[in-house]
């Protein structure tokens, strides 16, 4: 088994008296899609925010490539090579695809923007991800479809030699064909050796594209299973009840949390 690139052990997080995350263990492996699933309020967002450095952690360790690290803010996460694509995409509608992909990291020459170079690199990046749905990288983002926007947001995240990408509900607002495009892209990212974390409510997406599934139940990891060994029903049970058959939380733990 390969070494996880990002390894989280025994993470605890409380907001005042509310204990949101209990001893969460969470690993991301290079070349794999790890789905992070759980009901609303299970702690998915909090976990992601802890990793991003937006929320501090109370206890537990975060290791990156085997070394323990302390991620204090989003820039530290980006510096390690962890990128986050949030649901609201964070694209500027009035800029074109190239400008968005290089936003905050523009290439300059003689102190002025080198748009030609950025355009070339943006096209290369999209081509390397086999994105074929964009007819021009100089299109304004406002004119793109939901799937294209999601594609650009993901491509922007992986442009910077990132090693782990967190995708928050990337297919939530998309139609069938566009969901297809994005899922293909997610799979290709993993095939290129990135560690991909897919946060999703859609079991079809999870079963199709993920290699392993980590189910959170009321702030605890209910189970970590491989998609090839499990079924949608099983995962849904893990999400809703914290246990399914002989896997998942012990009955008294699951009930106690309620």
């Amino acid at each position, binding site marked *: 088994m390969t070494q996880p690139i990002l390894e989280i052990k025994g993470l605890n997080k409380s907001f005042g008296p509310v204990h949101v995350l209990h001893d969460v263990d969470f690993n991301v492996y290079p070349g794999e899609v790890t789905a992070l699933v759980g009901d609303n309020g299970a702690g998915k967002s909090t976990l992601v925010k802890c990793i991003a450095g937006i929320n501090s952690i109370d206890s537990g360790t975060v290791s990156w490539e085997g070394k323990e690290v302390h991620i204090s803010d*989003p*820039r530290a996460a*980006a510096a390690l090579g962890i990128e986050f694509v949030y649901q*609201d*995409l*964070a*694209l*500027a*509608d*009035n*800029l074109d695809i190239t*400008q*968005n992909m290089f*936003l*905050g*990291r*523009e290439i*300059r020459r003689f*102190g*002025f*923007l080198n748009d*030609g170079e950025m*355009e*070339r690199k943006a*096209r290369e990046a*999209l*081509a390397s991800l086999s*994105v*074929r*749905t*964009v*007819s*021009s*990288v*100089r*299109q304004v983002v*406002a*004119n793109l479809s939901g799937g294209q926007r999601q594609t650009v947001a993901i491509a922007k995240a992986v442009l910077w030699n990132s090693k782990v990408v967190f995708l928050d509900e990337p297919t939530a607002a998309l139609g*069938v*064909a566009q969901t*297809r*495009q994005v*899922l*293909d892209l997610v799979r290709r990212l993993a095939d290129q050796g990135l560690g991909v974390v897919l946060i999703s409510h859609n079991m*079809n997406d999870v*079963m*199709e594209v993920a290699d392993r599934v980590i189910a959170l139940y009321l702030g605890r990891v209910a189970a970590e299973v491989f998609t*090839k060994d*499990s*079924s*949608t*029903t*099983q995962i849904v049970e893990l999400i809703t009840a914290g246990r399914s058959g002989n896997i998942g939380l012990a009955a008294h733990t699951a009930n106690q949390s309620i």
Partner: protein
Amino acid sequence: MTDNNAPTPNDGAQSTGAVKSDADLANRSTSFALDIEHRSLQQALTGYWNKIRTGDPGALPSILGLVVLGVIFAQVSSRFLGKANIGNLPGQGAYIAIIALGLVFVLLLGEIDLSAGTLGGMCASFAAQGIVSHGIKHGIPGSNLLFPILLAAMIAMVVMGIWLKTYLGAAMVVIGLIVLVAGLDQHVIFALVMSVGIGAAVGIFVGFLVAKIGIPSFIVTLAFFLAWQGVVLFALNGNPIGINNYSFWHGLANDNMSPAWSWVFTIVVVGGYILYTLLHSIRAQARGLAHDAIQLVLVRGGLIAIVAIVITILANQNRNPNPQFKIQGLPWAATIPISLMIVCTIVLTKTTWGRHLFATGGNAEAARRAGIDVVHIRVSAFAASSALAALGGAFLASQTGSVALDLGAGNILLFAVAAAVIGGTSLFGGRGKPRDAIIGALVIVIIPNGLGLRPSLPAQYQNVITGLVLLVAAAVDALSRRRSRSS
């Protein structure tokens, strides 16, 4: 094992979808087709037409508006298209153009600066008082406290500017401060430099209140709109100051470049523009990047060159009906705003700061997540806007011949906002060009000019017609945005 079968039919259904979309894609020659293909002039024009139809009309509506108004006023009075009248237009509109140019920075952020007009008046009044009293440091008659307050405020704004990383703004304040302390403001040119420094200082403070404290810019600048009108009275000690005796200041809105220099200006600006766009297009084509078709670049450049050359030829003829002395050459009131527009355009489109300004105006959250210091961008935009407003105030005083007690008050700011909007700048942020300010100012100023030539059309028509033009411009803007959303 039965579990494993469950997802399979689903998979099947989705992969047929994939096959279908792949087939669709195969019909297109390559991905990024639009970027690489060479386009003939006709295709380029079709592309331009499509751009107009899908909600990016560019300068077209405002230029069409200008032409329509020109045609109407040519019917109203035969003098309208006369050389003397056209030659007066820049002087009448320069202050609107320059204030509007500054406002573009603020409007791009989706903010507003209601105080730009009265700020210009205040800065001009300090400059005028400096000249008259041989340096403000010798005390402003009637308000002894004003100099120490001004000094302290400017020093504080230098510190704040550095703290908020608005270094260029802080540098302008420092220059103003040096002029102030050295007493150089008894000289006209230095006095105007100081007034721009004061403007930058105010801009930093407004930016601080908006971006750091979080007061809506509408409220902050409304407060200053009122306050500066009072400061003007303090600075002038209740007496208007005529500036016609100071030839440099008077010349801003009233003098012309010599015919030879007018040609140099036209050739440098138009030639530089054509050369740049042409080289850019050729190089981009060679490197396989997106570019405008070379024919389109040539047609566009040619049109601009023809217009510019015709204007220069006409401007270089004597337009003074009085044989005593000649009035000829391009007015400074045209060449200075155009030069400023070029600088602003380069700053906005070719620098990181400009790119970040657009991003902040389009989606501040996205900009923040991309690591952009949004506070810095906001503060420096207000500093740029206010510095230009101060310069606009100087042009206004030059045009009216004096620093009046109500300089910059009244409709002036609203005309400047209208100019930017008529030109195509969006009030909601993220969309606009410095060019808009210049064209819009021309539209704004042509209305009172044209109506003024027909005494039988009294002044009350002016505001009504200006209002209607603004309404039409806003309607064009709203409709084109609706189109771009629905497309």
